[in-house]
């Protein structure tokens, strides 16, 4: 009987009853052929591969991460709660040492969902990885986490959630934002003043092939992970870098995904995008599963795989090398960059405009953060959306110092309830979420 060298857990939640709309790429059919391939390969019969039932996340789980406006129920469906619950079930099994690695094959995806959520953007409503990470921190004492987002789109939601968190290393590899949704994720986007350098964005030119991806993994991602020394590595395993994906322009292959997984050695992988549902997903997911389980994946090759057609041009190769060098330089200068970003105790303001393409909502944010050299810093976000909702969201991070705890409480206390429909306090030090209504 086949045996997995690494005990691996899988949650399979294809949400066969959930779609954004009937012909949308994020639809019921998306994981159908993947499920067929996984079943036909007899994956769940392999000794050391365990199937887990997804949990159902609660409003409390979501409130550790998001400010849902007006509330959690309004922007989620049962499928979102189970999808996030799938990631949570896998995380728990890893923590309880039932398995060494886990893969949540779930949809809907989540990596475009930001801290404030008025609705869906980039097919995402709530952030599966972030909900899982904050659960791990609150209930299993995990501290330092690295999230490597290999979806072809910039993981701007996860990036936003961990923008101010120096204990979370977020690295996103994605197709250059000048050529693809959401249009962000450039090398200079390094995180907020309290966490500069622990957010790393690696844009890759269209036409990047397996060679290019593995170059970045070997020359940038792995050395940085080595230095950051996370307690846990999470891979947001989007599969839309594939050479057949209809929404993107890359040349990655199933063998490439499997090899990347072998190199990254993530403790937990969470499925994100990937819309070549017949030609790519069945083979890519199989490759990732086998690589996680530390099994041979050499025969997992797409039927139409042609390595010659998938070679990358020397122009692309050069560009990738330059980007990789830039990121490595930023990483080595992160302490200086952070010191220059602000003075301890001062309040910095940032204004942003966010468009929710899936639900057609427009949001304006005014964010104020306390610059802190002792913790991630308390902050408030004044958020006004085209839905008519206007809210104040206050966040006190898990490792907050007393000054930031006090600052956060003051922000919440002083909220002018004539202006806001609601004010929220997300106090991670107490694992508590408070709502004030006007």
């Amino acid at each position, binding site marked *: *009987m*086949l045996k997995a060298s690494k005990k691996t857990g899988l949650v399979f939640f294809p949400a*066969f009853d959930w779609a954004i709309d*009937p*012909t949308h*790429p994020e*639809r*019921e*059919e998306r994981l*159908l*052929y993947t499920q*067929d*391939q996984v*079943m*036909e*390969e*007899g994956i769940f*019969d392999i000794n050391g591969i365990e*199937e887990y*039932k997804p949990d159902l996340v609660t409003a409390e789980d979501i409130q550790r991460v998001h400010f849902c406006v007006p509330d959690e129920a309004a922007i989620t469906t049962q499928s979102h709660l189970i999808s996030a619950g799938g990631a949570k079930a896998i995380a728990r099994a890893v923590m309880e040492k039932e398995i060494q690695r886990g893969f949540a094959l779930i949809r809907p995806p989540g990596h475009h969902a930001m801290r404030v959520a008025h609705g869906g953007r980039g097919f995402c409503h709530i952030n599966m990885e972030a909900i899982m990470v904050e659960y791990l921190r609150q209930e299993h004492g995990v501290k330092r986490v690295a999230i490597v987002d290999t979806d072809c789109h910039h993981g701007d939601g996860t990036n936003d959630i961990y923008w101010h968190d120096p204990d979370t290393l977020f690295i996103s590899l994605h197709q250059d934002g000048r050529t693809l949704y959401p249009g962000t994720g450039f090398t200079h986007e390094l995180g907020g003043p309290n966490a500069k350098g622990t957010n790393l964005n690696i844009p890759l030119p269209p036409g990047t092939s397996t060679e290019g991806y593995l170059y970045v993994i070997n020359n940038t991602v792995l050395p940085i992970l080595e230095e950051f020394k996370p307690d846990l590595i999470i891979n947001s395993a989007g599969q839309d870098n594939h050479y057949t994906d*209809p929404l993107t322009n890359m040349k990655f292959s199933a063998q490439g995904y499997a090899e990347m997984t072998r190199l990254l050695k993530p403790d937990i992988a969470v499925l994100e995008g990937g819309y070549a549902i*017949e030609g790519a997903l*069945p*083979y890519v997911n*199989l490759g990732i599963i*086998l690589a996680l389980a530390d*099994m*041979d994946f*050499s*025969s*997992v*090759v*797409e*039927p139409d795989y042609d390595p010659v057609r998938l070679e990358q041009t020397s122009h692309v190769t050069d560009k990738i090398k330059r980007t990789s060098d830039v990121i490595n330089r930023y990483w080595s200068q992160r302490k200086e960059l952070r010191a220059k970003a602000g003075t301890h105790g001062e309040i910095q303001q940032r204004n942003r405009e966010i468009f929710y393409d899936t639900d057609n909502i427009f949001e304006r944010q005014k964010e104020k953060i306390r610059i802190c050299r002792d913790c991630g810093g308390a902050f408030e976000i004044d958020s006004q959306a085209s839905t008519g909702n206007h809210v104040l969201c206050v966040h006190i991070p898990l490792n907050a110092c007393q000054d930031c705890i006090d600052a956060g409480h003051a922000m919440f206390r002083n909220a002018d309830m004539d202006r806001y429909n609601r004010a929220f306090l997300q106090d991670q030090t107490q694992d508590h979420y408070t709502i004030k209504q006007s």
Partner: protein
Amino acid sequence: MLIGLDVGGTHTDAVLLSKKGLKRKIKVLTDPSDLFNTVLSGLDLLLDNIDPLDVKRIVLSTTLTTNAVVQQRIDPVGIIVSSGPGIDPRLFRTGNHYFPVAGSIDHRGRERSPVDPAEIRTIAKILKKEGIKHVGVIGKFSPRNPCHELQIQALLAKDFSKIFLGHHVSGNLNFPRRIATVHLNTAVYSMHKKFFHAVKRSLEQQGIKAPIQILKADGGTMNLESSMDFPGQTILSGPAASVMGAIGYAPKDQDVLVLDIGGTTTDIAILVKQAPLLEPVGIGRGIYKSLIRSLKTYSKGLGGDSHVRVENGAITIGPDRSGPAMAFGGLHPTPTDAMVVLGLMEAENKESSLGGMADIADKLGTTPLKAAQTIFQTACARIVEEAIKIVDRINRKPVYTVHEFLEGYRIQPRKILLLGGPAPYFANEIERQSGIETQAVPACSVANAIGAALARTTCEVSLLADTELGIVAAPEEDFKEPISKSYTEEDVIERAYALLSEKALKSGSSPDDLEVEVIEFQKFNIVRKFSTQGKIFRAKLQVKPGLIKGYDQVYTQLNKNNDGTPSGAEC
């Protein structure tokens, strides 16, 4: 009248039922080295002075296949597999004559690379030279499109007398299990055929004309003719017989634990509202994982005749049986001896039991009576523990019964039904330890044979329709038809229903028992370039497993005769 006969590891049980009730029951020792004579002597005793023409149905459950697999007495056979991308097929080798070959079908059933006829002809030559008579052919994704299996079969047809094909065994996807299942069918075929043809001849000589039905692992039956294509399905039919024997006593709205306490083992199963739990993919016991549809049953090496020992100052029971209890001429103490000493059970040779208990008591530094008490309580505790552990384990995974997939269902047993010879003696103690109402079923020592006799003929059909490819197919039934874009859900169900009825009647079902249900239905839009190109429908229908109609009075009669005490006449 009906006959049910269940060959167990220790005993073979047989019953004769009329519409009014249990007419006759017998129990003979199983001779594992001669199952044919075991079956015949059982039937002879049962039919003594009975008009053979009165017998309308015979259902047999045997350990023939199980024993052959366990003792590795199976034929060497040729296995040819074609795979395509995925896990290396060489890892699923079944024996010395195993050949991965060219050819690949994808998950939608489209050919991605062709079969190489020259390669197949070469393999045929090798197999013939090596004296191989039967061959199995398995393709990856053959339930989506069996064309490669059929093509290879055609290339082999003139050289081999029987060829088993992967897409016939199940509509479920699982390539390694499909290989194992076809291998099992191929490897036990000649033995199965020889055995049942001999049984059939012998019954015909006695003037019995009733068709022989064979019990399957899913608690349904199939006729002799159908069994020749799927002999592997007879594996583990024994535990299924017990479950079918318990259904008649299970409350309609509760979860029930069924414990069949035999001589060597206790088989554990669960009923949810009278529906047995199902292995969703197929039998997966030990390393032998298959696509054989099966009830979910567990076996624990602890029965009335389990060998009791003292190890490191503590009592161990089983998992082996070293002959009968001392009370019945055995050499080693057993839980049965403990029950004899405790006065729970009558036996002529109580002295021997006492001797066995005294021996154990010496080692424990206690009295024989206390030793017997400990053994008896430990045996019950182990059974209860194991049953609870199994319920916990099942609750951690999705739950499937023979009728449906129960999303998020948690099993909470409210009743325990005990079967098997020693069942009545165990009932009180198991109830005390588990805190769950416990009842030994009437005629508990032959309830399994009653279950076999009354089991319905079952089968299932999987139908796939793909309106983009323009095909509706049930590869298991060798059915395929072109369809138009406008093929609907109703068309799918109607077609599947027709195929299922035909198959069930062919397998020996009575038209009265054709209770059909849809057990799976999925529908997907195929969307390419943001517009719907077609639909995929997947349907699975089955004849509902259960008991045949017209024999309700059997239970009424048995319940009436059962006064509920352990020494009740029927046990």
